[in-house]
């Protein structure tokens, strides 16, 4: 999780995205502990409450769970869950902008499909 924070997206979302990406990449394994809110706050120079918001988002989605008195851990099946989630969101986050841009440029569906096949 050594990326930098950008300005384009809410910080707490970036935190949760980073943790998800780390889980996908195998940097954080299932049943392993994730950095605490204080550690995240220190690393990125952000308010601990903001880090907590990002983590709580993942807890709500079942990707992380809390072990009382110890900290936050990666839930079993988290990797698969994240994969599913991102697949579903792929349409909205990547496809829709692509189609909008194609439309504004006047690129037809056939041209688009041809471009994809050529890549």
């Amino acid at each position, binding site marked *: 999780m050594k990326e930098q924070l950008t*300005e384009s997206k809410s910080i707490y979302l970036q935190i949760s995205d980073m943790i998800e990406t780390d889980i996908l990449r195998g940097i954080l394994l299932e049943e392993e502990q994730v950095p605490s809110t204080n550690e995240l706050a220190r690393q990125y120079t952000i308010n601990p409450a903001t880090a907590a918001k990002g983590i709580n988002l993942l807890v709500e989605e079942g990707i992380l769970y809390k072990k009382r008195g110890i900290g936050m851990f990666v839930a079993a099946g988290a990797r698969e869950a994240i994969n599913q989630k991102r697949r579903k969101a792929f349409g909205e986050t990547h496809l829709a902008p692509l189609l909008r841009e194609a439309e504004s440029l006047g690129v037809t569906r056939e041209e688009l499909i041809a471009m994809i096949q050529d890549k």
Partner: protein
Amino acid sequence: MKLQCTDLVKTYGYLNAVDHVDLTLEQGKIYGLIGRNGAGKTTLLSLLTAQNPATSGEVELDGQRVWENRSALDHLCFSRELNISPETGLGNIKVKEYLRIASVYYPHWDAGMAQRLVALFRLPVKKKLQKLSKGMLSMVTIVVALASKAEFTFLDEPVAGLDVVARDQFYKLLLEEYSATGRTFVISTHIIEEAADVLEEVIILREGKLLMVENVQDLLDSARYVSGRAEEVDAAVTGLEIHHAESMGRSKGVAVLLRQGQAIDESRDVTVQPMSLQKVFVALCGEEEKA
């Protein structure tokens, strides 16, 4: 513990520097206080810490008046910007002396921390205050604020005069102290974007009045910049709270603050972008462009 002010007013001549402000500060948060020059930030901080008498209204800590109240004042620290001029008699006081007096008056003063910070900042303790650069004076106020260990600590422009590296150092120290102790910090600053990540809530003051007190992340989640052709933009934001509309030729850009349940009409051909805290502030407190 809560620090609360009710209907607080401070009048100078005909001007209300602080204009009927109701504010509650909770324990364990980092607040940012932002506003243009002359918006009343320093005055508000002075009133909250009983360093200025209010014209009317109350300031209470856990229901007890703060004014002339020793036990309440024991929990507060206002480390203000030091403007040493020949008119104030303080120029002749040495840094060492200033810190010594702070150590006498703040009941929870942490001498060890003060020493560490003085060493970290390489403060020339034997020098008189008038011989210090603006940056060094800022560091002195930061040392006092952090080492005071007060439950409610107020800093007025703590990073004025500090270079980028020193500012970064300050934010890290602040977070470290906050994580360790859960003290409440209220920081007034002009360097909004840098501080934005560190703040939990932001207090915006405009011409003496309280404009808003919001969780920073919530505010940023609800603020969007919509741009494109003027007609499209207008259609996309009908019924929404807009600020600071700017036009250039046929294009228009406007800042939108979404309320619960509201959304921008994205079927329109407009670009919707998130906004930084600084941009939100300018949209709210900057001058409206004349159409």
